[in-house]
């Protein structure tokens, strides 16, 4: 039964191979002349200061949470779409209820300005 997935496995292998080849070729063929100025992080010509990492604003968190929630919603669509014909009108109603409840959340998030980047 795993043979069904052989195509995916081959694809992953080829993709990995291409990535290695691309990086490896650059490493092999490219000239390497290191200097201090070259290895400095580019900061619009200024001399860099402080840590390279800094705290990100909390708004990113909200975006990520909303993404997860709608992602989970989409995951449920797949099995539904496959059995949609067998479920008939009943299945349609089920999914409409599901979406309407999430739509309430969407309207709420919209009105609260959660989708805006202040």
């Amino acid at each position, binding site marked *: 039964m795993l043979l069904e997935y052989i195509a995916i496995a081959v694809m992953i292998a080829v993709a990995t191979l291409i990535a290695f080849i691309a990086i490896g070729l650059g490493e092999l063929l490219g000239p390497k002349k290191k200097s201090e100025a070259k290895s400095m992080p580019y900061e619009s010509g200024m001399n860099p200061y402080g840590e390279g990492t800094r705290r990100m604003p909390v708004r990113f968190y909200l975006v990520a949470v909303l993404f997860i929630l709608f992602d989970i919603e989409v995951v449920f669509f797949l099995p539904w779409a496959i059995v949609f014909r067998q479920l008939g009108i009943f299945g349609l109603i089920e999914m409409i209820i599901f979406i309407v*409840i999430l739509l309430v959340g969407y*309207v709420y998030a919209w009105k609260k300005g959660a989708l805006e980047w202040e």
Partner: protein
Amino acid sequence: MTQLDFQTLLPLTILTVWACVLLIVDLFIPKNRKGITAVLAALGLAVTLSFTILQIGRENSGYSGMVVLDGFSTFVNALILVSGLLGIALAYGYVKRMGLERGEYYTLLLFSVVGMMLMAQAADLIVVFIALELLSIPLYVLAAFSRTSAESEEAGIKYFLLGAFATGFVVYGTALVFGATGTTSLVGIVGSASNGTSSLLLTIGAALILVGFGFKVAAVPFHMWTPDVYQGAPTSVTAFMAAGAKIAGFAALLRVFATAFPTLATDLTDILWALSAVTMILGNVVAISQTNIKRMLAYSSIAHAGYILMAFVPYGNKDIMPISIAAGLFYLVSYVFTNFGAWGVVIALEKSEGKGLEIGDYAGLGRKYPALAAAMTVFMLSLIGLPPTLGLVGKFYLFRAVIAGGYTGLAIIGVVTSLVSAYYYLRVVVTMYMKDGEPTTEREPMLDFTTAFTAIVTVVVSLVPQWLFLLASNAVLKLF
């Protein structure tokens, strides 16, 4: 889906729709008039309560056996809805005074009530899990609702992290139970278990589920979060959390253990016995050294989880189980009213920035506000289990059930720890009446009404408790 399915969950469906609509309606209510949201939320609970009462006497299962409707669920649902109403009444003035007033407070509370009701009706471990999440997530958010206070944030994150961990235990337990029996339906589990298949996996699964719920109801040794969360969360949230989460947690435990795991009684009774004893002892002993009233009531809440756990100990005994379930339910009712009353008094004395929460701040209350002090005295007596209060009757029924089950030792521990608890509860009473001070309280009509109402219920029902016990006795678990 048939009409029968729909009827099984009718009150819950009404409340869910109400909460969703309220979430949208609240967006159009001006910021300074969020009291309207509170009233609408309370109205939703009241409508749901009336539909729940109409369901008395109905018994059926629905949604492919995922949920059941029986006397037990109707009783518990009614109690949960009353808790929701009391929770809103306590919050009404408090959130305004503390600057926390946002419409989401009430919608989240409604969603939590939906989760609790679903928990009471769950007949499948999958539904138990989803209901547990649905009741918990709003509580995590509510605990952190005071965003300007570091304590509230801490309470929220602590409750969330430990709560998520505890839910993990429930899920893992469910998985093992499914592995052992091949089903998650409570009826299916008992059918499979009585066929004599597998005990070890099933026992471990049941024990893990017990751990998860032990956390929710704050039983020792899963109680670590309770004092910090109860202290840090806004007091109105604490009151609702202490009552609601306990009812739902115990309801689910009772249903799951009594219907799905009676075959494991020999293994689990000792564990439950020890859990109950340790919880009573630790909760009451640690409460003695508390000076903050919220922390003291938190430990008191732990101790009461121990008392209610007593009702589980004889669950394997078919003759005793009905009266012990009835005693447990009765005790839950008494705890809910006493709990809301006591927290109501705490709210009346609380000042902004966490002031007015030391027991010393209650000095002089008896002289200056005799009615409030009298109410607090009633609640303290009820928490100890002294007459003339519901607490006494509740403990009487519980101890009677446990002794009838042959666990006299546990009943003795219960009595002794109640005596110990008298020390710290009476200290509050002594402070109120014997010490001088100039306490100031907030006069809010809803708060005064709630405190007075719970105090009257605590006293009056204790004088004629038989009808309530009869109601609880009729609230039988039904298998389908």
